[in-house]
Each structure stands twice: as C-alpha cells, then as structure tokens.
C-alpha cells in the first residue's frame, strides 16, 4: 500500500506544517487551541499562511488533494505502518461508530501515535 492509497481512502490528508506548500487547499476549518477560527475551509494557502501557522503553533492541517500528484508523503509515518496501527487498534474501537467525525479524529490520532510509538504509552493493566 502506498501513501497515495491512504490519501484516496480519506479524501483529505493530514499534512504536517513543514510539508505544506503554497497552493494547497484547506479541507477543514483551521482553529487555534482555543477554538478560534483562523482559516476557513476552501482557502488556498499562500506563503503568508505558512508563516502564520508556525507562529500560531499549528502543527498540521488537512488539505484537499487526494488525487494531487504533488502529495507524496503526507504523513509523518509510512502508510504501511499506519495501516498496521489501524488494524491493531480497530478491535479496541469496535463499539464506536467509525463514521462519526469525532471518532474518526480520535481513531486517526491514536493510530498515528501507535504508528510513531508502537506500544508507546499504553499502560493497560
């Protein structure tokens, strides 16, 4: 599975701020830690936005471009690793409605964390 496969699944891709480029289109509203809207969905990123993200402490955002050839490695981990992490965690989430946007965010966060730090902080007794 390639990272392009992941992108196709998700329609949008999580892109770390360092990997964002001018011309990418914001897929979801960008808010700061307090929930204030910084940038609306549909905005095309400019150089000024990229600098502002660093200033605002935004670590990454979702951009459109599932089938954009420019996006090669949108995630901080390999697609294989992420897929493994998702498989590992899926049983844990079996009573959750995976299409719910909150659960989708929660699952993605946990899968990325698991992919980056396998077994990481799990302190399940």
């Amino acid at each position, binding site marked *: 599975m390639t990272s392009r496969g992941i992108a196709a699944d998700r329609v949008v891709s999580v892109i770390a701020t360092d990997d964002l480029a001018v011309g990418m289109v914001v897929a*979801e*509203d*960008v*808010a700061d*830690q*307090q*929930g204030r809207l910084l940038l609306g969905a549909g905005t095309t990123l400019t150089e000024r936005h990229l600098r502002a993200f660093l200033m605002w402490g935004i670590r990454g955002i*979702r951009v459109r471009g599932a089938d954009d050839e420019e996006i090669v490695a949108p995630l901080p981990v390999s697609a294989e690793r992420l897929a493994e992490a998702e498989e590992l965690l899926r*049983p*844990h*989430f*079996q*009573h*959750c*409605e995976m299409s*719910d*946007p*909150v*659960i*989708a*965010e*929660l*699952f*993605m*966060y*946990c899968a990325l*964390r698991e992919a980056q730090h396998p077994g990481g*902080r*799990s*302190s*399940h*007794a």
Partner: protein
Amino acid sequence: MPNASDLLKGVVTVASLPGIYIRLSDVINDPRSSADDVGAIIADDPGLTARLLKLVNSAMYGFPSKIETVSHAISIVGTAQLQDLALATSVIRLFANMPEDLVTMESFWRHSIACGVTARIIAARRREPNVERFFVAGLLHDIGRPIIYMRAADQARVAIDRAREEKIPLFRAEQDVFGFTHAHVGNALLETWKLPPTLREAVACHHFPDRATRFPVEAAVVHVADVFANALRLGSSGERLVPPFDARAWATVGLAPAMVPGILEEAERHYDAAVQAIAVDVRQ
C-alpha cells in the same frame, strides 16, 4: 441480590469524605469568611499543601512564575476551584489499601486522572468558569469500580471475564451480572459523601449522558473524556475497549470535531504532570 448502595455498607475506609473538603465547604459557604480563612485550613495540612502547590505549578496551569504559597494559589485559582482540587488530591488516599487482584490502584488512578485532565481541557475550551469541577468529576467517574472490586470480587471477575469473552464494554457486563453498574455505585458513594449534585450526575450518567436532566454539560464532558481516555489507553479501570460514544454528548459539548487532536495532545502533555502531582503517593 444487593443493590448499588448495599455494596457501600461496611466500607470503613471510604465511609466518610476527606474531612478537609467539609471544613473547606463550611468556610467557603460562610459569608463572613475570607480567602485567608480558606488558606489557613489548607496550610494546616502540609501534605495537602505540597500536593496542591505541585499541581498548580504543573503543566496543567502553565503559569510563568512559580507559585510558592497557598494564598498565591488561591488568588490565581480561586477558592471554589481550590476546594475541588483539595478533594481531587485527597480522595486517592482513601483508596490506598484496596485489593489489587483485578485492577491495580495505580492503573485505576491513571485512567481516572487521564479522564479528569481531559474533562478539564474540554471544559476550558468551552470557557467554563470552574474547570476544576470538571477535573474532579472526571477523576471520580469510575470511583464505583474499586468498591465493586473490594466488596464483590468474585462477581466482578465474572463481569470482567464476560466482557473479555463476549467483547462487550465492561459496564454492560456489570449490568448483566449485578443488575447495576459502577456508575450507580459511584453515585451512591458520592451521595454518602454529600458531594454536590453536579458531580453526582456527571458520575451517574457518564455512560448515558442523555439521561442527565440537571447537568447535561457536566455529564456530556465526562462521557467524552472517558471515551478519549480509554482510546489513549492511559491506565485502565478494568475496561479494555473504547466505550460506546454518544454523538449527542458531543453536540452538547458544542466544539468542532477538528479540535479533537488538539485536546488529545494537550491531555497527553498534562497527564504525566497530574499523575506526578496527585498520585505520586498513592501507595502511602
């Protein structure tokens, strides 16, 4: 078959709320008292003072300079908030001698603290005036579990085994085995302690937040925080799955789904500091 309140009978260690909470209530509710009177009560208990100062100096608060005195902490955090924090840092000690065959108290408190910290962050995002109330509600949400493990260990083991075999959430297995869940027991305990109804309803309804009639926001926030804490697997109260998530609770919370990663990241950052500050002496 015993009911939820029956399980509490004869539990000497948790028969009464930490005296400090009652003494603080008396002073805070006395219109003639001042912040100094509150400070004097806390300062009387060196252990509590140390825990509170450690907590308010932790990453959870992020104050630029060190808070060295109780009066400084009161001026920054507030008296009502400090009373809730005093409860949070004192209640753990009541459970120091619980049996640990089913779940270790360390694992239990780790999950409880993760839920409390997450509830507090969600409340802060909502700009709630007293975020510490949410912290305590999250901290206490599963408090019925150690009571069940102590008073009905055999049946609790049956419930835990059934949850594992049938791959169902533990609270459902509890309902099957006992006819009630840890949420009922927790509510009964908080009633015995005469804690405020906000805390009781948040604890009682954390798996069914739509049943909260008086304090739906508190119940919804703790529900979401419990789901997040279980997903992050920071400790466990016996549950091995992410409990079912009620999307209506998120609607009650009223935040954008895009805020979820930020909440989780902050929860992970604050978690270690909170564990250090309030659970470091669990075993004493």
